[in-house]
């Protein structure tokens, strides 16, 4: 009998994760049909799709640090699907804004994108996501070679733009967007090579140890 390693479970887990990623959309559709999205359903859809785009983006960014943390490669095998779902929810978020919120009023939309910084950065994040989604197939990956990785490093900028988009739209209470900012910061810092991080850590520990000695 074969041993069930996590790697062997990936083909089973993938369809499950796929279905799980569709749950937020399912809830929105059910809520819309049942007229159960609250007093301002357009706002509810805008917020839900935006938050899920950001959450899935952070999950995508978590796969590499997770791989290093557990020393197994399987998280990488979910990365593309999670990234594409982040793009999917970002596209729904943008569509909600263009259609349900603005009614495809071109002039108002252009004005928003140009004049309102939080919309400018949100729009930029989406524009940057498009080439990543288009080059996500294995064939494209092979064709682009090293340039694929360079291109896909744009995800870090997209993460930062996405969090800024949220931070800048909030009126006064920054707590929720700051949680996203904190998670993003941890995920980006975790990408620093561990060796260097270790050296920095030891140096920091050394600095902190000084007052300890002085105290004696």
């Amino acid at each position: 009998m074969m041993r069930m390693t996590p790697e062997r479970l990936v083909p089973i887990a993938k369809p499950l994760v796929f279905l799980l990623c569709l749950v937020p959309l399912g809830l929105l559709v059910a809520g819309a049909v049942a007229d159960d999205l609250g007093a301002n359903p357009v706002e509810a859809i805008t917020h839900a799709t935006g938050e899920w785009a950001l959450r899935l983006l952070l999950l995508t960014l978590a796969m590499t640090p997770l791989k290093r943390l557990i020393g197994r490669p399987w998280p990488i095998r979910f990365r593309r699907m999670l990234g594409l779902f982040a793009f999917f929810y970002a596209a729904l978020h943008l569509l909600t804004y263009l259609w349900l919120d603005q009614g495809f009023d071109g002039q108002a939309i252009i004005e928003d994108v140009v004049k309102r910084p939080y919309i400018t950065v949100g729009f930029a994040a989406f524009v940057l996501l498009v080439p990543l989604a288009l080059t996500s197939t294995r064939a494209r990956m092979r064709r682009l070679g090293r340039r694929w990785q360079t291109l896909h490093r744009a995800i870090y900028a997209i993460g930062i733009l996405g969090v800024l988009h949220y931070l800048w739209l909030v009126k006064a209470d920054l707590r929720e967007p700051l949680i996203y900012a904190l998670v993003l910061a941890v995920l980006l810092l975790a990408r620093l090579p561990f060796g260097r991080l270790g050296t920095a850590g030891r140096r920091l520990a050394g600095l902190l140890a000084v007052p300890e000695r002085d105290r004696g």
Partner: protein
Amino acid sequence: MLIKRPSDIPASEITPHGVWLRRREFIRAAASGVGLVAAGGLLLPWDQTQGVETTVKPPGRGQPIPGLKPSAFSTDEAPTDYADITSYGNFTEFGSNKGDPARYAGALETRPWTLVVDGECEAPGRIGIEDILSGFTQEERIYRLRCVETWAMVIPWVGFPLGDLLARFKPTAKAKYVAFETLFNPKQMHGQKRQVIDWPYREGLRMDEAMHPLTILATGLYGETLPNQNGAPLRLVVPWKYGFKSIKSIVRIRFSAKEPPTAWNMLQPDEYGFYANVNPQVDHPRWSQRRERMVGAGIFARKKETKMFNGYADQVAGLYAGMDLKRFF
């Protein structure tokens, strides 16, 4: 209860000069409005046998307010659903999400409730909420409400002109502004435990704005006492200004010689002005104010064009004659 003699104040003292000068305008507006209300009454006679003269049917969720008078200032637009008005709104004292007020405002104790009125006036004092309810003729005022965040509602308030109350405390000639304060009680208003806003919430009006007949203190909604999440037991309603001016759960009113500091303006002076008049030509830095979304209109409803002074320009534009409304936004 310290308010004794409300009767012998000459009209010239109550009515600010500007309004008095334009009294014919108000009479005209009132006359045309009465016609509309009368017509509305004929078209929509809900159960008159209960003796509550509201054009909307009380939902039976609060204490009915008896003896309501209809008002010529009411709009004939269809009111937003009670459920929407009471489940969606900003009341940061209870949290930052729109559903938080309905979720947490139950902790607010609205009885007993005392309003302190002081500052530049001859007869400073305090008045309890029961005396406010019985001492002023409560009217039904169906007003449009426009939030600075671009959503809008039509709300059947119950209330009375703020000017009627202010006059009792005899503001002096030095009183150029009126300042308002919300209750500060983090035990009941859990959102006040965090310094999201420099508590207590503060708002202010120029004296002529405060005395304007459209400006009311609201005590009820849909013919009944105000639900806590809507600012019980006493809140300001200034229908031609963005919603954040209409301060909730008021405990103090102060007459002032100087423009008082106001909560959102203190936090973001480039985004929220002292005047905050609804104005489709002056954008908020983060969103256009040209259009508004009617709450309850449905997912596929288009936004409506926002009107100058929220559609109350005929009544209030004169207050701002000669002012640069881009500068004094």
